[in-house]
């Protein structure tokens, strides 16, 4: 049985301007030790998907439909208390901004020990020991002394390591990482990516890596889901999606990355802006920005076309898509 199985998840925000369908029918599943890259531009609903899994969506947002099955159990059916005992324990989350996710006025020791003792009845000393081992595991030198420091005494990369260590403390089965390396510079980013990948392999933790950067998931993820306007427009094994994108949006994203063998060539760009989530077009949400759009795209939203297990796309003109990239 897969660790996480999301079926037709719908998270809507009920604002004064109308209902914003931030996540509108997202489905994917994840096995132990597997890494899923959830890719999309800002406002495509990828973070809200992550928050929905942990049931951390704040009003006016609400999960209105679908199932989030964690080891076959629907998280929506759990009481708040049961959900709380899962959070930080069996499902952990790593947040985007390492400057903001650690409480500025509490020492690292306080925050880590608290995270352990919220879920286990163990002594302060034992919790502290585990904090030290975890900090060492994510590559923080002289961890025991660093415990007494405050977050502002760490650099951004070190802080994100601490945040990752806190997520790893209780040996979770699933980690939702919401753009954890976006705020870091590239060298630190690659270090952390390598470490996280190794840790996930070692412990068999399933990992959802939310990012807007296809380059990051290319080396990290086993499979990719590309989100656009609250929907997954394409998903599949990483190499297949990257090698042969079916959806023009994926192709456009790939074309906008500078890479090998393309020296001197112009990068392609996707024209226009991500649509406002409260006023989505009738047909395919990507149609106004798509070179391949035809009448049917503007009138009917495409359904998912499955091309294999956990592999599929939402497009009326899938075969033409690859031409955009090349």
């Amino acid at each position, binding site marked *: 049985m897969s660790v996480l199985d999301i079926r037709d998840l719908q998270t809507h925000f009920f604002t004064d301007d109308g209902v914003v369908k931030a996540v509108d029918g997202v489905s994917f599943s994840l096995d132990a030790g597997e890494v899923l890259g959830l890719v999309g531009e800002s406002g495509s609903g990828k973070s809200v998907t992550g928050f929905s899994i*942990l049931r*951390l969506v704040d009003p006016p947002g609400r999960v209105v439909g679908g199932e989030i099955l964690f080891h076959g159990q629907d998280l929506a059916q759990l009481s708040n208390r049961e959900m*709380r*005992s*899962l*959070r*930080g*324990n069996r499902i*952990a*989350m790593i*947040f*985007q*901004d390492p400057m*903001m*996710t*650690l*409480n*500025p*006025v*509490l*020492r690292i020791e306080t925050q880590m020990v*608290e*995270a352990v003792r*919220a*879920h286990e009845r163990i002594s302060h000393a034992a919790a502290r020991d585990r904090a030290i081992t975890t900090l060492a595991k994510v*590559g*923080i*030198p*002289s961890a*025991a*002394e*660093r415990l*007494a*420091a*405050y977050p502002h*005494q760490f*650099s951004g*990369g*070190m802080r994100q390591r601490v*945040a990752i260590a*806190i997520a790893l403390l209780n040996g979770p089965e699933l980690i939702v990482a919401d753009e954890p390396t976006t705020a870091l510079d590239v060298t630190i980013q690659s270090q952390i990516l390598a470490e996280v990948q190794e840790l996930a392999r070692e412990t068999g933790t399933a990992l959802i890596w939310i990012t807007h950067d296809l380059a990051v998931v290319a080396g990290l993820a086993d499979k990719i889901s590309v989100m656009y306007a609250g929907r997954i427009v394409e998903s599949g094994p990483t190499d297949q999606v990257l090698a042969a994108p079916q959806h023009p949006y994926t192709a456009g994203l790939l074309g906008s990355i500078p890479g090998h063998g393309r020296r001197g060539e112009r990068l392609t760009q996707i024209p226009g802006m991500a649509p406002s989530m409260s006023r989505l077009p009738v047909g395919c949400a990507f149609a106004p920005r798509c070179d391949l759009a035809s009448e049917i795209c503007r009138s009917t939203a495409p359904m998912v076309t499955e091309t294999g297990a956990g592999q599929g796309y939402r497009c009326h003109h899938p075969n033409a898509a690859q031409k955009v990239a090349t």
Partner: protein
Amino acid sequence: MSADIHIAPTTDPAKLWRIASRVAGLAVVAALVMLLGGVGLPPLWSRIILLVGLVALAAVLLRGKYAKFFSGPSAYVATACLLLLIVLAIFATELSPQNPYDLRQLDIMDGRQPPGSTNFDRTLTFHLGTDEQGRDILSGILYGLRVSLSVSIAATLIAMLIGVVVGIYAAWAGGRIEAILMRIVDFQLSFPSILVALMLMAAFGRGLDKIVIALIIVQWAYYARTVRGTALSETRKEYIDAARGLGLPAWRIVFGHLLPNCIPPLIVISTVQVANTIVLESSLSFLGVGVPITQPSLGLLIANGYGYMLSGQYWMSMYPGVALLAIVAAINMVGDRLRDTLNPRLTR
């Protein structure tokens, strides 16, 4: 990744500061318990511990920021002035030439003597004169300072406690609970505080405990509103989401993570609010509804001498008035410096 800070386990300054603040806090509490309960060490020792503890707490609060705090002559003057007045208040029993509460020491024949005169057998000089019952004004001021300060500080601390709990709960709970609590706060703040306090004191009667309760009821709303404002902006920050993502219970997030981040503005308004409370308490006492006549505060001393002002016997009202002015001005100036020093928003 080289270590950019060096912390030796034994002489970690942050740890020493933490221990210092705990010891100082304990010392202050213990000294107060011993003084109020009349147990343990002799009062003089308790008072010394209290003073040292208070100074240590102030030092912990300002650690690493002394240069910023003492950045002008006004800061030195105000701090020295406040410290002097606090010493005078704490050691009033030891310093004052006469116990103004002890009727056996008062002689009606010494009544209304001008500053510098002596009593009948020349054993006592009234440097600031006497009031109508032959009570030494200087002693009265020292004891009055103690009453004024302790009443205001106690009222401010308890009001802050209540206000913080209400404000932070309102910010956290949101929705209808927040609306109801904040409308109560608005309602409370729409009355002039002196009016509310007057009505309460008229209902309660005189007494130190009663004036403390009245001052708390008048003041808690300020804190509730301030804390709610800070807490609202802090709740939106990611570390709160992260704490929820760790599965911490709500009360732990509120009191362990949210509250410590709301403290700096609280320290600032509480210092300024102590000054306001002193003025309010003095006003109530002046109007005759405050402290009991046997335990005069500065306001009551001013009121006692007020009737003789126009007959040229100015000292009975004026010197307590000067003392009141000095303490309020000193607290306000120190509070201003504290705000500049502790408020991170002003440094950016």
